[in-house]
């Protein structure tokens, strides 16, 4: 397998996920399969191909600098686990 369980650990930590050993093994297998699948592309000769960031034939889609009404705060905060003083309340993140 290309992806080892330790690498799954690292990726999980970046995404703040806690995984069981069983899940780690499963994701290691899944991620490896995805990479192996994508690796087939390297069979093609791409020396003369510009890197592609987007496949749509679109560019420069902009809007004018105009203010429109924002959401009602009560609606915005309705999904918040905890609210205080009109703010989202989260566990303290600095010492």
């Amino acid at each position, binding site marked *: 397998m290309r992806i080892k369980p330790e690498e799954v650990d690292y990726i999980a930590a*970046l*995404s703040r996920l806690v995984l069981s050993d069983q899940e780690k093994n499963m994701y290691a297998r899944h991620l490896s399969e995805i990479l192996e699948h994508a690796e087939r592309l390297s069979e093609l000769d791409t020396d003369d191909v510009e890197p592609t960031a987007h496949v749509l034939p679109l560019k420069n889609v902009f809007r004018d600098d105009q203010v429109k009404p924002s959401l009602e705060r009560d609606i915005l905060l309705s999904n918040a686990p905890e609210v205080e003083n009109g703010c989202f309340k*989260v566990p303290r993140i600095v010492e």
Partner: protein
Amino acid sequence: MEVQTLIGLEVHAELATESKMFCSCSTEFGAEPNTHCCPICTGMPGVLPMPNKKAIEYAVKAGLALNCDISEFSKMDRKNYYYPDLPKAYQISQYDLPLCTGGYVDIETEDGPKRIRIRRVHMEEDAGKLLHEGWGNNSLVDYNRAGVPLIEIVTEPDMNSPAEAGAFLDKLKAILQYIEVSDCKMEEGSLRCDVNINARADDKSMATAITEMKNLNSFKAAVKAMEYEEKRHREALLEGDPTVHETRRWDDARSVTVAMRSKEEAHDYRYFPEPDLVPIALDKSYIKSIRENLPELPDQRYQRFISQYGLPQYDAGILTSSKYLADYFEQCMTIYDNAKTVSNWLMGDVLRALNENGKDPSDIPFPPAYLVDLIKYVDDGTISISIAKKVFDEMFANGTDPGAIIKEQGLVQISDEGELLGVIRQVIQENAPSVADYKAGKKKALGYLVGQAMKLTKGKANPQLLNKLLERELN
């Protein structure tokens, strides 16, 4: 061993658009928390961001003013990290194809002019604001700022002292103000600066590991933090102490930098092209029209102030360091012709009063015409220069017209010989010992007697006339 300090800066400037980078929420500062938010800037599933045309224009303008090349093809990328100030868990930024590359800013140093290279200027969105104080084991999050357009200006490590970095920051702020793309209000977080600093042996045989300092919210704090780190790095290099690449926080209250926990710097941003935004391909004519419409920049205005107004280099440098100050000066010059006198007032009392009150030149509380009036009252002898300083303090405190202050407080200078002679005789009578000292050859006693006469007239005596009459009376 000769040691060199290397400093590179990353400066974030909020662009002065009305609405956010990818949605139509207001960017206005100081609103009630979480009232300038919508599904786009708070990262709800299924929403589609759309870039603000004005923000692109401002970023191009900044790039051109900083002598950068503007990319004809540019794209936005996702920078992924988990932090509560980032509602989407990614920031839309630019990675490998920034909008502007390869510019420079010229600064003045002790050893003459120096060019600081700009590596890149890219666009991104701001994060929300975290409130840590007073909430115990919690932090509060206000997302009003999330999605406000920013440019990030990245320099090469070309600055060799905190003073040079300070000069660069001042110059950069001036340029951004001149081109009116950012209000540059540091106290509102419109301009923030990250520092990368280390020390290296001149022969490049050894170097310390780079320290990063994030989000220094005033230039003064940035320079102090750099001075502290410069010393720490130089000592480590000279002592041969091992150093590690780390992020340190500036503790303003204690004037030290503190290493942040390594947990907070597990950075692996996993950049990838933002799938919701199509590329930006600006045509040459668009870039050309922005270039042609760039206003006069600080360096050009500096040269003009010297040639047009005959100001010394020093004066021109200080006045043009702030657009507001330079504008104020030029407004004065439309109604008055002695440039040096106006310059002296602005560089002296006006800047002193602003500094003492922690204010910017944009906060001068009275119009240029009032300053010119004050100068004219001195020119025509209505008030003495020392009274003018008092009138100035009053003008600065209340924004009042100097004519009204002079009239209300009866500050008109006493230039009437008869009135002054009366005062002088009283002083001579009441200060016999000093008069005797003066007559015995102690010329210093004259100053004391002048002071007494000033005290009696509450500072209003015409000083030249007072001196002349007093000397005459004593002899």
